[in-house]
């Protein structure tokens, strides 16, 4: 198992999946990140991140039946695996520890 922590973008993708619940695939994940962060993200980067997360065993995926509205192409649905949840939690805790003792608004710091 890799002891590497999660990158910012990986965290965003995992959190978007958790927010969406149910049958989650690439299109809504990008929409969710853009909606919540209020900035545009590279769609290609999201798919590459999803693949990387799956290689790390943090998410799993499965293909749907062909969908006529998409020209008969299937969707690849994803869900966060328990290990992904653990990693997210650890990342969050690490950041929290770093923030501890600092003013949340960083008042007085230039």
């Amino acid at each position, binding site marked *: 198992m890799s002891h590497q922590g999660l990158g910012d973008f990986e965290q965003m993708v995992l959190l978007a999946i958790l927010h969406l619940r149910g049958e989650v*695939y*690439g*299109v809504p994940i990008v929409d969710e990140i853009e909606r919540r962060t209020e900035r545009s993200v*590279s*769609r*290609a*980067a999201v*798919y*590459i991140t999803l*693949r990387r997360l799956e290689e790390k065993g943090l998410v799993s995926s499965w*293909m749907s039946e*062909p*969908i*006529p*509205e*998409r*020209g*008969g*192409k*299937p*969707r*690849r649905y994803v869900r966060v695996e328990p290990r992904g949840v653990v990693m997210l939690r650890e990342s969050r805790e690490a950041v929290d520890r770093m923030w501890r003792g600092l003013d949340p608004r960083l008042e007085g710091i230039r």
Partner: protein
Amino acid sequence: MTRPPEPPGLARRLLARALTEDVREHIDGDLCELYARRCARDGTASARTWYWRETASFSARFFVERLRTRGHTPGNRRVGGFRRDAMPSVLDARLALRMLVKYPGLSLISVTGMAVAIAIGVVVFSVSAAMIETRLPLPDGDRLVAMTNALGTEPGQNRASLRDYAAWRSELTSVRDVAAFATTRRNLVVPGTAPAPVRIVRLSASGFSMTRTAPLLGRTLVDDDERNDARVVVIGFEEWQRHFAASPDIVGRQMRLGSEPYTIVGVMPEGFRFPVDDGYWIPLAFTPMDRARSDAISLTIVGRLADGATLQSAQAELATVGARTAAAHPGAHERLRPWVRSYTRAFFDIDNPENPGSVAKAQLFRLFISLLLVVVAVNVASLVYARTATRAGEIAVRTALGASRARIVTQLFAEALVLCGTASVIGLAVAGTVLAKLQETAERRLGELPFWVDLGLSPAVITYALVLAIVGAAIVGVVPALTATGRRVRANLQQLSGHGAHMQLGRAWTALIIAQVSVAVAVLPFAVHFTEEVLAESTRDAGYPAGEFLEASLVMERADGALTCGRIGFCDQSSDTGVVERLGLDQRFHAGAAELIRRIESDPAVAGVTVRIRDNERIEVERVTSSDADKRPISLVRGRVERVAAGFFALYGMPMLAGRALVPGDAHGGATAVVVNQVFAEIHFGTEVALGRRLRFVRERDGAGDVDRGPWLEIIGIVRDLESSAYEPVGRMYLPTDVTQLSPPVALAVRTRASPAAGFAPRLRELAADVDPALQLQGLVIAAERHRQSMQLLRWQGVVAAAAMVSVLLLSAAGIYAMMSFTVTRRRREIGIRSALGADPTRVLRSIFARAGAQIGAGLLVGVVGTVAVDRATGSGPVHDGNPAALLVVAAVMTAIGLLAAIGPARRGLAIQPTEALREE
């Protein structure tokens, strides 16, 4: 629900290339989904731009990702086996761009010439690839094969019968899922739209398992459908979207094909158009009568190579099975030789056992066209060589400063690569436009193109263009570079201190000049002549009010039981002109066509209706002349024959030049009247009066020379021809036909009172369906539109020819100018010295021009002799067609360019001061 919009095809293919297999399908689906949303929200143009941006983003990101995961780390001393200093760098590219701008004339000419050559190469590559490609866009599509019998005595005619199908299906082990199909046409009757003929495939159930494609909805055909001759149909994705609004509860619904109701049992996924470009599949059922005469039932038989089998092993097994069949049925099979080949090649009749080596020929042709680029590249190379020669000093200095030969060659190669790369991009853009036009024209002319044929810019085509660019760059850049950096560089270095460096020229240079002039003089007149003719023809008027005419081919669909057909390679029952009984179709057609004509005539929107039956077969005609006392036939002439209804000429507004038009009575009781067009009269009777002359048809009965002679016919009128063409004059004979006794196919023409006639088209279809649901109006089109398309095609040919011609002319002119000018410049010092020694300037000039004149003269001589020889051999060309001006103009232009190129340097040579000339020495 409507059909989802399709993203740009090229972008989609590029994207598919860029993505790895594990993510390709769902990312494509996601982007298709988003594309549809964007189309609805922002419009198609904006969505297309967005899709292209996403393609670029995905391609770049996934490329970087691949490099990252492979641990690719550039920066070694040697990269890909090359010294690093010999690898082209960004600086090389910048220098190359600077050279491109610094010599705009050379760049423009070179890029234009190369771009035209690359465009031609790409078009030929794309078309030939579509024909010799063996892969179908189906799972393991390259393992699909077609099986036929070659007939020993009829080259090119292949056949496979129901008996073969039964034998091959049960006995072959190297070919699995053996299936058979035949196509026919039926009127598709969908509520809300006028009936229109569509192609139907009668396909055996095994055909679907062979393609390994599951239905999108419902099921495919099954064996029970065949056994019970069930009235069930599987429809294509596009048909489902277009005619049934992608209804999810389509399965189980009824539709009508001709007069029969069918139940829809399944919908195939998008892109499934097997066997050609089809969207309706019904069971291939056989009656006991069919089985009893199984040799007479022709089919297209296909299958899938079994695991481990090859075409060779399948061929060997098929030959064994064929020998068994021949032994059991010697009468029908004795001379037949079974043959298996790739499905796609069978479609285009490539790899035909009667025509071996057709693939090799196609590849050879492709190679030949690629050589065109080499010829152009050599031309450009000679220009670049002249420029490189002027940089001999720079090259020598760089060598002295420590630049390796590889480094200098690389830089010169980079310059050529930028030049050829620019040409490649322009060539691809031109080829893309031409190919799109070609695809559109082919679809319109043929009705449909095979589903695997896409004449777009595929990744393979783009790769080919890039390879052409690299080959071109190698010729244009490397050859002059190697020459400039060879042994001579040391000598140049030694000379550099006092006299400047230069490259030596020899006999090869003289030969190049002669070759350049002769090729230009030999080729260009033909191109000028052809372009002139085609462009003049493309402005031709239809000759009649084509906007008021609707034209269609009137045919009748065959009864289901009749499975015999004429064309056997890919069996199309609708083209069958009848080998077995016609099941009373003739009578039905006679009555239907006559009634349809009567109803059209009585419609208030119609000014008139007429028919013609084209006999495209050119037949022999005997004629007699009045000067021949015993009326003995004196010669055989050719004519194209059309049978037309009385009133045909009047409806089209074709004036009678002599005699009278055909009248209804001419078609009855041993019809002997014939009207000919002006071209026919002029070709076959010269200045004599054609009116009253007698003709008769002569048909060869068999190969032994026996002929059948028809009754004598008399020319009763001469008519100005319809759409008369000076480019391709066609002599025509018009015979009378009785509209109550018409046989399909009949060309029906309806003249409406209003123009354009398009508004009447749905009404016409309704009338036909009302008279008889089996009556089909195929290829219904406004005559003006058909004429416009023909003219547009000609214009395209003219424009392409003109572009090729201009680029050849420019290249030749520039090449000759550069070479002549360079040759004379090299003699500048000699001219100066001779002047210094007191030579007469006139004599000096004469000696210079004598040499230039001799080189140009030799080139002209070779070129003119070549043109005249080709002209005479082919019976066509500028001289033969009375247009020698093209030849003279080209010869004069080349001479003028060559002499102009010599004048400037010679004058500068004469003006040189003797001391300066001696110092150079």
